[in-house]
């Protein structure tokens, strides 16, 4: 009995070592995901940011079929990186609405002129209020909304070239 008990500290150490080693080898996913997946888009109404491009409201998005909702900003570097992918999605027939976080009219104009404009509508979210109500934790983030206004999926971070086919497949499933 005593002999076996003597091994207990070593067993405890080995267990702790295994936990720490596995944490080092496979770091935990620190992505903060929205808890709204499977739930209706919260009600919001944002004014337009640039002339000729309508603002965005949840009421206007309802009943228009599935679409992407891109949360972006002109000051966000990964948003520049994902722009070509959004242009490809738009070319493939995916409607994309956007919420611009903490942005200004001239900055957005310059940004769209530089990277292209895939957006049907852009809402002006000056103090991240709608971003917070979406459970979005940064820019860029993209939400897939179905025809009934339910949030189906969230793509956190910039959309990579290899993600485009997956997003297209997700979108076509909703039609």
């Amino acid at each position, binding site marked *: 009995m005593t002999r076996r008990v003597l091994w207990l500290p070593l067993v405890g150490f080995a267990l702790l070592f295994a936990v720490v080693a596995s944490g080092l080898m496979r770091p935990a996913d*620190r992505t*903060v*995901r*929205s*808890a*709204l997946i499977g739930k209706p888009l919260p009600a919001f109404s944002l004014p337009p940011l640039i002339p000729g491009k309508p603002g965005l409201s949840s009421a206007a998005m309802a009943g228009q079929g599935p679409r992407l909702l891109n949360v972006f*900003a*002109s*000051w966000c*570097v990964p948003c520049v990186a994902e722009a070509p992918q959004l242009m490809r999605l738009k070319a493939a027939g995916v409607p994309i609405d956007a919420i611009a976080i*903490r*942005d*200004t009219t001239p*900055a957005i104009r*310059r940004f769209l002129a530089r990277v292209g404009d895939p957006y049907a509508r852009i809402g002006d979210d*000056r*103090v*991240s*209020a709608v*971003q*917070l*109500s*979406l*459970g979005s*934790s*940064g820019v860029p983030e993209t939400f897939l909304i179905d025809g009934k206004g339910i949030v189906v999926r969230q793509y956190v971070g910039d959309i990579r070239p290899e993600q485009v086919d997956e997003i297209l497949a997700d979108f076509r499933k909703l039609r």
Partner: protein
Amino acid sequence: MRILLPIVLALSPAIALAQSTAPAALADTQLADPTQEAAAKALMETLRCVVCQGQSIADSDATMAGDMRALVRQRIQAGESPIAIRDWLIGRYGDYISYDPPLSAATSLLWATPVLLLGLGVWIARASFRRRR
């Protein structure tokens, strides 16, 4: 100056990329009513900044933390209870947003461990006192 100019020009796109909008109205301004401000402050200390995940929104300098402080102060000012505001945020971001973990299947071990360890301590103490007798 002539040497500096190219450097300034080279940096200007980076400067243009920086956020240019002002912080939200109540991000860094206390509420006029001290009781309300105290309630808001207490709630802000238990809410996690989603950008800088190790800090509460009361401690963080991130713009988004400022926007979250503004949201908390606005809602407290409008008479909403801190619990309702926390629940609203948990509905958006999940339990992760709160530093005060609720009892659930995932956190049950966290809550039960102190009790279990206390029980283990009592058991060991009893065993060793008995041996001494």
